[in-house]
C-alpha cells in the first residue's frame, strides 16, 4: 500500500541518533550502498533493499531526488521468490526417477535425496522470477521520526534490520509505552509513574 493510495496503514518510529554532515549526501550514499539488487538471475530466495519512491523498479538516489520539502521519502523493496511446493514435488519426483534409472539401483540414500531436492529448488529458483513488494516510508530527519506504510510484522522487522544496517541508527517502534517514555515530553517522575502502572479494574 503506497503512501499515495486511497487508504494507507502506518507504523510510527522514533529514529535514535544523528548522522554526520553533510546529511543528505550521507543518506544518499548509504541508500545507494544498500539499494535493492535484482534477483531474477540469482538463486537467492529473498532480497531486501532500498529503492526510489518514484521509480521503484530502477532505484536512483542521485542528487536529492528523495528529498521532498522537509521530508525524506523513499521505499523498501522485498523481492521474494516463492516456488509452489507442488512444483518442487513434481520436479523432485521426476529427478529421482531419472537418477534411479541412470544408476540402475532401486533406492537412493537419504543424502542423495537431499541433494536432489536442493538441486531442484536451485534450478526452479533460477527460472522463477521474484515477486517485488514495495513499502514506502517518510523520514523527518529533523524531528527524528519515521512513518512506515505497513502494519505487517515481517516488513516492519525487515525495515528495522535494513535501517540499522544502512544508517547505523536505531529505529524504535512507537507504541503506548515508548510514546509515553520517549516522545510525549513527560518529566522523569511522570515517566517513572508510567512504568509503575498496572491494569485498571473497570468492573466492581
Amino acid at each position: 500500500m503506497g503512501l499515495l493510495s486511497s487508504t494507507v496503514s502506518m507504523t510510527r518510529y522514533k529514529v535514535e541518533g544523528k548522522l554526520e554532515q553533510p546529511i543528505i549526501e550521507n543518506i544518499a550514499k548509504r541508500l545507494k550502498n544498500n539499494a535493492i539488487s535484482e534477483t531474477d538471475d540469482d538463486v537467492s530466495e529473498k532480497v531486501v533493499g532500498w529503492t526510489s519512491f518514484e521509480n521503484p523498479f530502477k532505484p536512483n538516489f542521485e542528487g536529492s531526488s528523495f528529498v521532498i520539502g522537509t521530508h525524506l521519502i523513499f521505499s523498501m523493496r522485498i523481492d521474494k521468490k516463492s516456488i509452489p511446493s507442488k512444483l518442487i514435488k513434481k520436479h523432485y519426483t521426476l529427478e529421482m526417477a531419472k537418477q534411479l534409472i541412470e544408476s540402475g539401483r532401486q533406492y537412493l540414500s537419504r543424502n542423495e535425496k537431499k541433494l536432489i531436492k536442493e538441486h531442484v529448488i536451485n534450478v526452479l529458483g533460477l527460472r522463477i522470477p521474484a515477486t517485488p513488494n514495495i513499502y514506502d516510508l517518510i523520514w523527518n530527519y529533523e524531528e527524528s521520526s519515521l512513518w512506515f506504510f505497513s502494519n505487517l510484522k515481517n516488513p516492519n522487522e525487515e525495515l528495522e534490520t535494513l535501517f540499522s544496517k544502512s544508517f547505523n541508527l536505531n529505529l524504535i517502534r512507537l507504541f503506548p509505552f515508548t510514546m509515553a517514555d520517549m516522545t510525549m515530553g513527560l518529566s522523569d517522575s511522570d515517566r517513572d509513574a508510567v512504568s509503575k502502572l498496572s491494569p485498571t479494574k473497570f468492573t466492581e
Partner: protein
Amino acid sequence: MLDVSVSYNRYKFIGHEFLTWLWFIIENDRDKLRNLEKDLISLDIGNRIVLENRLNDTLETITIKGDDAGLEEGLLSLKKGAVVTELNLSYKEANQEWRFTVKGESLSIANLKTPDTKPIESQEEVEGALIEKVFLYNKVVQLIDNLFFQFIKLRISNEWNKQVIQRLRDWMGS
C-alpha cells in the same frame, strides 16, 4: 529502558485503556475534545469496534461492525470486564473527513482514508501531492498524540483512581 518487546507486551493494557477512555470521552465529554483540538468539528466512532475480555485463561473477542451498528453490545462487554482493543474513528474538520482505525496495543494506524486530494496528472504534480498527503496524515498523527498525551497525564494522576474510573463504571452500567 526495558527491552522493547518486553515493554510492548507488558504495557499493552495502556493502549486498551486509552481506547476505552476515548470511547467514553466521545460519548460523554465532547467539550474536552474541542479543547484538545481547536479545529475539530467532530470525532465519532466509525464502523468498527473490537473488544477483548480475558476471563481466567480464556480470551473472548467481540467485534461490532457496520456503519449504523448499535454499540449496546460493546457497552455490555465493557460492563463484563472487556476493554477496547481496536477503534475505527471518523474525524471531521471544516468540510473534510478522515477515517481510520487505531489498534490499542501498538497505536498503529490502519485503513487511513484522508479527505480527497486532486488527482495526479503529470510527474511534476507528484511532489505537491506528496506534501499534501504528508500534511493530511500528520493531522491524524497529531490528533492521536494529543489525545494520548491527555490520557497518559490523566492515567498517572490521582484523578484517575478517585474520579475517572467511577465515571467510566457509571457509563458502562448506564
